[in-house]
């Protein structure tokens, strides 16, 4: 199992944070372009899912899978969007994303008055805590023995 990348978008579509761990294929476009593309896709998938749903949705769009990877999506009622890309063997990551929001983002960004909420996160502490947390996940760790 592997975790590839993590994205954090605010409600306006600004990419607040991006991290990668085992991303093998580098894109040719710039990061900014990639963020815009990613946000646009999420926005479209969300409205796509809600329009096509035959019943009232509780949670909306949660994840999608391709032949190579799985994208996990979590959105707070305040519009913060957390995205985690993993390989196919990883199960439900909702709790993990929720945990990143409540014990890393809220603790080290929201509660730090020097961190602006609508600009990319530069806090080293946040960076460190997130990296530490992701690397501690079982979904991440087994990748080491496997690869």
């Amino acid at each position: 199992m592997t975790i590839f990348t993590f994205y954090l978008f605010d409600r306006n579509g600004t990419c607040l944070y991006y991290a990668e761990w085992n991303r093998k294929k580098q894109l040719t476009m710039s990061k900014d372009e990639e963020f815009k593309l990613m946000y646009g896709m999420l926005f479209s998938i969300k409205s796509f899912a809600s329009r096509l749903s035959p019943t009232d949705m509780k949670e909306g769009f949660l994840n999608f899978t391709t032949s190579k990877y799985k994208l996990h999506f979590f959105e707070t009622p305040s519009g913060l969007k957390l995205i985690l890309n993993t390989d196919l063997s990883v199960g439900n990551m909702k709790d993990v994303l929720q945990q990143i929001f409540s014990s890393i983002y809220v603790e080290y960004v929201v509660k730090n008055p020097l961190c602006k909420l609508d600009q990319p996160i530069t806090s080293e502490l946040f960076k460190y805590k997130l990296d530490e947390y992701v690397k501690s996940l079982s979904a991440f760790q087994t990748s080491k023995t496997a690869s």
Partner: protein
Amino acid sequence: MSRQANRAGDPRKVNGELFTLTYGALVAQLIKDYENDEQVNKQLDKMGYNMGVRLIEDFLARANMGRCNDFRETADVIAKVAFKMYLGLTPVVSNWSAAGDEFSLLLESNPLTEFVELPSGHNNLNYSNLMCGVLRGALEMVQMDVDVRFVQDTLKGDNITEIRLKFNKRLEDAVPVGED
């Protein structure tokens, strides 16, 4: 690490008097700094707004709550969950407008005003105006444009403190550039 150490001991409780007195000192300083009560009210509202914008994230992280489907549900969450969590009290929700877009929070006691007597000459001061800003800021972050104001205040001789909330509109999600 120190953050975690604090958390382990006494996670989210702080002495209520410390909070009340700190708030009192803040208001007293604003009264010194500004010429009239209206400006003080405005500053308190602004500060509250800035707090609310951040506080909502803390609230969502702690309460682990989904989206509210209507304004009545919002009212319940504010009164029963949010006020309880941050101020340790549960205001009564009442005085719904016919359209269901306006309600009041009735507070029998207001922790901010525990040791306060308004001196004469400050009839326009809304001492606890910070609260209005907090509610407005927090609700704006969950896509609700709401007006919040004090209509009754025990400090001004009313029997009860009443905060009135009026729902204006739902704020739409930002559309990414290039769409539509």
